[in-house]
C-alpha cells in the first residue's frame, strides 16, 4: 500500500507540474534524455516504434478485418466468436488485442465504443485513437446522449434503430463491424477494405459511402 500510495503520487504530480517545462515537446526531450542517461532507453527502439504506429498499425488493419468478415462467412463466425484469436489469422495480434471483441451493426442495431474512464481502444487493429476519442466531451456525452453525439458526427439514425454503447471498463476491446454497403456484390476484399473508415469501426459513422470519404 505504501508502495502504491495515491497521496505521494499527488504530491509528485504537483512537483512535476511546478518544475517540468510547460511545453510538451520540451518535456518529452527531457524525459528521453534522462532515460538514456540512466541506461533505461535505446533511442533507436523509439524510432522503430514511431514507424510502427505512424505507418504500420492503423485503421487499415481493422478495415481488412471487417472486409474479410464480409466476404468470408467462416472468418466472420470466428471473429464474432473470439476476435482476439481470429485476427491472429492475419497476423494482427498485439497491444491490447488479447480480449478483442467484434460487435456487429445490423439494420436495427448500432454499436458505438467509448472508454469513459480513460482511453481504452483496440490499438492492434485501429492504431492509436483520435484525440476526440480521449477527450472529455466524447467520454462524458456518448453514454448519456449517443444520438446527440452521432448527430454531431453527421449520422442520423433511421427510426427504430437501437443504440448500444460499449464502455471499455475492463481489458476487453471493442471493434464495431459496420454493415456492408449495398451495391458492393462481387467486390474484392481489397476494394471493400478501402470503404471501411476508422470512425465506422468506432461507431461514430454508420453508412459507408461508396464514393470517396465522408460527406461532412
Amino acid at each position, binding site marked *: 500500500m505504501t*508502495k*502504491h*500510495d*495515491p497521496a505521494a*503520487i499527488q504530491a*509528485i*504530480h504537483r512537483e512535476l*507540474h511546478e518544475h517540468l517545462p510547460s511545453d*510538451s515537446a520540451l*518535456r*518529452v*526531450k527531457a*524525459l*528521453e*534524455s*534522462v*532515460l538514456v*542517461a*540512466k541506461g*533505461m532507453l*535505446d533511442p*533507436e*527502439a*523509439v524510432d*522503430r*516504434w*514511431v514507424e*510502427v504506429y*505512424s505507418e504500420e*498499425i*492503423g485503421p487499415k488493419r481493422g478495415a481488412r478485418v471487417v472486409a474479410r468478415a464480409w466476404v468470408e462467412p467462416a472468418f466472420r463466425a470466428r471473429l464474432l466468436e473470439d476476435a482476439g484469436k481470429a485476427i491472429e489469422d492475419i497476423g494482427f*495480434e498485439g*497491444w491490447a*488485442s*488479447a*480480449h478483442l471483441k467484434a460487435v456487429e451493426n445490423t439494420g436495427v442495431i448500432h454499436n458505438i465504443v467509448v472508454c*469513459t*474512464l480513460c*482511453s481504452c481502444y483496440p490499438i492492434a487493429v485501429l*492504431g*492509436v485513437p483520435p*484525440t*476526440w476519442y480521449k477527450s*472529455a*466531451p466524447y467520454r*462524458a456525452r456518448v*453514454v*448519456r446522449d449517443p444520438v446527440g*453525439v452521432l448527430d*454531431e458526427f*453527421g449520422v442520423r439514425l433511421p427510426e427504430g434503430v437501437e443504440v*448500444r*454503447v*460499449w*464502455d471499455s*471498463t*475492463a*481489458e*476487453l476491446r471493442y471493434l464495431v463491424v459496420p454493415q456492408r454497403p449495398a451495391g458492393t456484390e462481387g467486390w474484392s476484399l481489397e476494394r471493400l477494405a478501402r470503404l471501411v473508415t476508422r470512425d465506422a469501426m468506432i461507431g461514430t459513422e454508420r453508412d459507408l459511402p461508396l464514393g470517396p470519404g465522408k460527406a*461532412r
Partner: protein
Amino acid sequence: MDGIHDLGGRQGFGLIDVDEPEQPFHHPWEARLLGLVRAMGRPGDWSIDWFRHCRELIDPVDYLTRPYYDQWLQTYAAMMVKSGVATVAEIAAGTGKPSAVPTSPPMKPADVDSAKRAVVRFDRDSRAAAAFKVGDAVRAKGHGASGHTRLPAYVRGRRGDIVAYHGAHVLPDANALGEATAEPLYTVAFAAAELWPEAAGRRDSVRLDLWQSYLDRP
C-alpha cells in the same frame, strides 16, 4: 476514486472536435512519447492499473487541459519518481545517473518486431465461482472505492442485466496496489432509462465490463 477522470454522463462539456485530422499523431513529440513508453526499461512494481491510477491523480485542471500524451509523460514521470529510478530534478533537467532500482532492460530496435505482436492476457485460471449467469439481473454497488476502480459512478446503484461472462480477469482495484487477484468478469447492459433522468422511454443501452465484486443481486 471519485476523480475527474470518471467522466461518463457528466454534463456541461462542449462540442466534440469531429473535424480532427485523420493522422495518428498531430505533433512529432506525441509519437516520440508513445515510442519511448513502449521501449523503456521498467521497475517490476508497475502495472497497467497503477499507471491508470497515477494518471487519475493528475490535478483535475491539468487532466482536462494538458494534451493526452503529455499526461502520459507526467504519469510515467511520477511513477519513476515514486519507484526511485529518477528524481523530479533529474527529469526536469534531462540528466541523471543510473539508479540502484532494478528495471527491465531497455528494448532493442531489433526486438520491436516481435514486441509489437506480443499479446498480454488478463484472464486467469481461478477457482472463484461465477455468482451470476447470462440473463441474470444485477445491481451495481452503490459505493465506489477510495482508490483505483473501474466501476464508473454513472452505473453505481443501477440495475442491469448480465449479457456475457468472460471467466476470471485480473481485478484492477487490487492490481493497482500490486496485488494479483482475479475475479469473474461480466458484460452488464444498463438501459438508458435506468441511468439518466431524461431518458425515460428511450431504447438505447450502455454495456460495461464489470467484475463480480462490483455487483449485487438486484
